[in-house]
C-alpha cells in the first residue's frame, strides 16, 4: 500500500500523521523483508535485488539490493559482492547469521560509510541515496554500504554571476560538492554543516552551513525552526526553501540572497550569514540578507577598493535608473515640461510629433516588448539565439522609430532602463524592481512627479518595515549605525574594516588585527620615533 498517497493526504485533517507513517521493522525472514521492499518500490527496472545463498544447506542467506545508476557499479562489485562471495568463512556451513553480520560489518567491507538499520523505511532511504543494502535472513538488522556514485556535472564557471577577477568555479547540483567547496575555503573547525532532509517525495538534502561563533545563535535557531517547519513533498530548487522560510510574505523584495558562487557563500559566512545549500541546484541561499547585500558583488573584494566603491555607487545609481527612468520620462514629458532644458524639450516634442500613442502607452508598449524579448532570449534554444538579437534590435530600435510607432527618446529610455537592470549583481532584486517599474509608470502617468515621490515614500516605509530573520532590512542605514557603513555605499580598504558588519550578531565581531594598514619603511621609522613619546594606535577603527 503506498503510504504517501496524495488522495489520502487530501482527505485527512492532520497532514502530518499520514505523511510520516509508523516505521515498519525488518522482518527476520529475508523473504518477507524482500517482499515488503518490493511491495513498496514496485517493480522498477533499476532496482537490482540479488540473493546470495550458501551452496550447502546452511541457513545463511543474504541479499544485496542497490539501485543501478545511483551506485558506482565497480565499487559494488569489488568492495561488496566480490569479498562476500569469495570469503571462505562465509562459505562454510557452520556460520550463523549473527556471526556473518559481525564479520561482514567489521572486516569485510572496505568502505567508509557503512550503516546499520532496523526499519524498512530507513533502509529504503539509504537505498535511494546510492547505498547497497545487505539483508540477512534471520536478523532484524541490515547493513548498508555507501556505494553511491551517480553521474554529476563537473564544476564549471558560474553562468549567472561571472567575475573578471576571482575564483571561476561555481556550485554544482551535488550537495556534497557544494559543502566540500566550502570546506576547502574555510579550513576551520568552526564551520558547521547541519543536514536536513526536506520533502517527503524528493527527500532533498538541505545543508545548513554556518560558522560557529560568527553566525548569530538567534538567527540560527530561527532558520532551524523554519526549516523544520517545512512540510512539503518536494524541494526541487532553492527557491522552494526560500519561499517557505523568507520573511514578510507580501513583498516584492527578496530577503534571502541566492548565489552560485562558493566564494560568495564563504564571504557571507564570514560576515555572519548562514548558508543553505540544497541538493539538486547550484544555487545556494544566504540569510539574513539586507537590502544592501544585494548590491555587493564578491568581486568588490577582489579588486581595488576605489574602483569597487565607484562601481558600487554606479550600481545604486543603476538601481534607481532601472526603477524610475521610464516613470520619470513619463512624468516630465506629460506633467513637468518646464523642467526640461528648452532644446531638449523641443527635440522631444519633435520626436513625439508623429507618435500615435500617449507617452504612457508608448512606454508600456516598449517595456513590455523588452520583457517579451528578454523572456524569449532565456527560453529560446541556444541555436536560434542569434536570431533574437537581430529581431530584438529591430523591434526595440531604429526600425520601430522609423515605423512611427515610438519616439527615439523612448527607445533610449527603455534600452537604458534595461541595461541598468543588468548592472545590479543580484538578479533577485533586479527582478523585484522590474515589477515596481510598471506600477511607477502608471502612477507617473496619473500623478506626475508627485505620484512618484509618494510611491517612493510608501516603498521606503515598506522597506524600512521589512526584516530578514530579525535583521532590519535597511540596516545599517535605517537604523543608522555609522560605523558599519564602511561596506555599504562604498567599500573602504580591507585593512580599514576590522569589524564584521552588523548582520553578524555572534560573539566574534572582530575579524582582523588592528594596524593592518601596510606601512612603508619610512612610516615604521617615524612610528618608532614617535612611540618614544606616546603610544597610540594609528588611525584605526576601535569600534
Amino acid at each position, binding site marked *: 500500500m503506498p503510504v504517501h498517497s496524495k488522495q489520502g493526504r487530501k482527505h485527512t485533517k492532520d497532514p502530518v500523521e499520514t505523511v510520516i507513517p509508523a516505521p515498519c521493522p525488518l522482518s527476520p525472514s529475508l523473504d518477507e523483508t524482500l517482499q515488503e521492499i518490493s511491495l513498496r518500490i514496485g517493480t522498477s527496472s533499476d532496482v537490482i535485488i540479488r540473493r546470495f545463498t550458501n551452496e550447502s544447506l546452511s541457513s545463511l542467506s543474504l541479499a544485496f539490493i542497490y539501485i543501478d545508476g545511483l551506485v558506482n557499479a565497480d565499487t559494488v562489485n569489488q568492495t561488496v559482492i566480490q569479498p562476500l562471495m569469495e570469503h571462505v568463512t562465509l562459505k562454510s556451513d557452520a556460520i550463523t547469521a549473527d556471526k556473518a553480520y559481525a564479520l561482514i560489518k567489521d572486516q569485510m567491507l572496505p568502505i567508509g560509510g557503512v550503516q546499520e538499520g532496523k526499519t524498512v523505511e530507513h533502509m529504503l532511504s539509504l537505498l535511494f541515496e546510492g547505498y547497497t543494502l545487505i539483508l540477512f535472513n534471520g536478523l532484524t538488522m541490515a547493513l548498508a554500504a555507501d556505494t553511491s556514485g551517480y553521474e554529476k556535472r563537473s564544476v564549471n564557471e558560474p553562468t549567472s554571476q561571472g567575475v573578471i577577477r576571482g575564483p571561476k568555479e561555481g556550485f554544482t547540483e551535488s550537495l556534497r560538492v557544494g559543502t566540500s567547496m566550502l570546506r576547502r575555503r574555510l579550513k576551520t573547525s568552526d564551520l558547521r554543516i547541519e543536514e536536513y532532509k526536506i520533502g517527503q517525495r524528493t527527500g532533498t538534502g538541505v545543508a545548513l552551513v554556518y560558522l560557529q561563533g560568527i553566525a548569530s545563535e538567534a538567527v540560527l535557531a530561527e532558520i532551524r525552526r523554519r526549516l523544520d517547519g517545512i512540510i512539503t513533498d518536494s524541494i526541487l530548487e532553492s527557491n522552494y526553501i526560500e519561499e517557505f522560510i523568507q520573511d514578510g510574505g507580501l513583498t516584492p523584495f527578496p530577503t534571502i540572497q541566492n548565489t552560485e558562487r562558493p566564494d560568495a557563500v564563504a564571504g557571507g559566512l564570514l560576515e555572519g550569514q548562514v548558508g543553505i545549500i540544497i541538493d539538486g541546484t547550484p544555487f545556494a541561499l544566504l540569510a539574513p540578507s539586507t537590502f544592501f547585500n544585494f548590491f555587493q558583488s564578491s568581486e568588490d573584494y577582489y579588486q581595488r577598493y576605489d574602483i569597487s566603491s565607484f562601481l558600487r555607487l554606479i550600481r545604486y545609481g543603476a538601481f534607481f535608473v532601472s526603477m524610475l527612468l521610464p516613470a520619470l520620462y513619463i512624468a516630465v514629458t506629460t506633467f513637468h515640461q518646464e523642467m526640461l532644458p*528648452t532644446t*531638449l524639450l523641443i527635440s522631444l516634442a519633435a520626436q513625439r510629433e508623429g507618435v500615435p500613442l500617449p507617452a504612457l502607452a508608448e512606454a508600456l508598449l516598449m517595456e513590455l516588448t523588452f520583457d517579451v524579448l528578454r523572456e524569449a532570449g532565456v527560453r529560446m534554444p541556444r541555436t536560434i539565439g542569434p536570431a533574437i538579437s537581430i529581431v530584438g534590435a529591430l523591434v526595440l530600435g531604429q526600425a520601430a522609430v522609423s515605423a512611427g510607432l515610438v519616439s527615439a527618446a523612448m527607445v533610449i529610455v527603455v534600452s537604458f532602463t534595461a541595461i541598468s537592470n543588468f548592472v545590479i549583481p543580484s538578479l533577485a532584486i533586479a527582478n523585484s524592481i522590474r515589477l515596481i517599474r510598471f506600477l511607477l509608470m502608471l502612477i507617473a502617468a496619473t500623478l506626475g512627479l508627485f505620484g512618484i515621490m509618494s510611491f517612493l515614500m510608501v516603498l521606503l516605509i515598506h522597506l524600512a518595515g521589512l526584516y530578514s530573520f530579525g535583521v532590519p532590512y535597511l540596516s545599517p542605514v535605517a537604523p543608522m549605525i555609522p560605523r558599519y557603513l564602511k561596506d555599504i555605499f562604498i567599500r573602504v580598504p580591507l585593512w580599514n574594516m576590522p569589524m564584521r558588519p552588523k548582520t553578524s550578531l555572534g560573539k566574534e565581531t572582530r575579524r582582523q588585527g588592528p594596524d593592518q594598514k601596510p606601512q612603508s619603511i619610512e612610516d615604521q621609522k617615524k612610528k618608532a620615533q614617535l612611540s618614544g613619546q606616546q603610544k597610540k594606535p594609528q588611525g584605526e577603527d576601535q569600534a
Partner: protein
Amino acid sequence: MKQRKQAIQPESNLPLPAGRPPLTARKTSCLLLCLPLLSTLITGCWDNRELNELGITSGSAYDWEDNQWKATYQVINPSSGASGMGGSAGGSTTSPPFITFTVKGKTIMEAIDKTNLTSTREMFFSHSRITVLGEAMARHGINQIIDMFLRKQDARETVFVFLAKGEAGAILDQLMQMTKNQGAGIQLMIEQESRLVSYYPGVRLYELAMALSSESGSAVLPEIRLTGHKIMDETTEVAVTDLPSRLALGKLGVLKGEKLIGWLTQKQAFGLSFITDKINKATIAFPSHPKTGETPDASFILQNSSTSVRPIWDKDHYVMDIHIKGSGVLTELGSDMDLNDRASISGMEASIEQHVLELVNNSWTEVRKLGADVTGFAVRIHRSDRKRWKQIEQTKSWDNVFRDIEIRPHVSIKIERTGLSNKSFKSVQQK
C-alpha cells in the same frame, strides 16, 4: 495548501528587535495626511499634457494699440527641427522654425485665451526666454504685464525683457541665422553682450520688478531693434550669408515708475554700467598720447572692474563718491610707444581713466536730466543714511534730491599686461 500555510507563517514569531510599536490607526492616518503636503514641493502645472499638444512659446511681445493689449506669441514649430536636432524627426528646412500669433484683448489673459481660437495647441509659457515690450506700451505702463508674469503659474520671471521702438510684435517675426529658436537666440545675444561688452545689462523680468519696486523706482531695459527695414520672416530669405536686416541691441530705455521716459545712447549706457558696477568685461578704445591727439589709437580690455559708491551729505545735497577700479590687458596699439617705459604705461592708464571718467560724467548728465534714478543711488543712500532717507521718503522729495546729487567719480585703471609684444609694430617699422 493547508500545509504550505503552516510552513510559511513563521515570521510571526520572529525575534523582532524591541521598540517597534505597531502603528495605530491615528498615526497611520496622520502619515497619510502628510503625503499630500509633499505636493507643495512640486510647483508648476497640474495637468497631464502630451508633448505634442503643447505650443512651446519661446518669446512674447506686447503692444498697446487702440487701448487694447496686443500680444504676439512666438510658438516653436518642433517638426522643423528647431532644436537643431537631426535624424528621425526629419522636418523640412522650408517650414519655419516658429510661428507667431498676434491677438488682441482688453486684458493680457484675454488675449492669450484668444490664441486658442486660432492655434491647434495650448500655449505653454514655461520655456519663454524673452519678452519684448513695444514703446507705446512702455509709455502706457507695464505694471500689468509684470503682475501677470509674477502671478501666472507657467510664466517665467526669468525671461529677458526688451523694449522695441515701434511695434514689438515685429521683432518676433524676424528669423535668426545660426539659431532657429529666436527667443533663445536673443537671450544668448544679451547674455553674451553683457558678459563680453557690458554696454547693456541683461534685465530679467524679476530684476525689472525689483528695480521698479526699489527705492529708486526706476529701471533700464535694453532696446532690441532691426538693423534694416525689412523683416526677414521667410525661411528662404535667411539662406544668405549677409542678412540685410538683423536683430541688434540698440539703446537703453529708462523707465520711471511704470513708464518709459527716455533713452540712453550706447555710450551713456556704457557709462551707466560703470556707475552701477555691471561691467564684466569691456573693451575701451583710447588715445595713447592724449596730448598729441584725441583720436583713439589703442585698445584695452577691461577684465576686472569694481565700483564702489559712497554717498556723502554735503551741506544741502548729496555727493556720490564713485570709485571705479579696474585692470586689464592692452590689446592694440597704433602709436610708437615704448612699453618698457613705465611712464608711458602710466600715461596710457591715465588716458583710459580719463576716457572712463568722461563716459561716467556723460552718462550721469543724461540720467540726471531724465530724473530717473537708474543708478541705484537711492538704495545706497537708504543703506548708509537711514534717518535722512526716512525724511526724504516722508517729504517725497527724492526727485529733487536726486537732481541735486553731485557725483565725484575717481577712476583707477591698471594695465596689467601688454600682450605678447613689448614694442608697438609702428616703432619696429620706423627703425
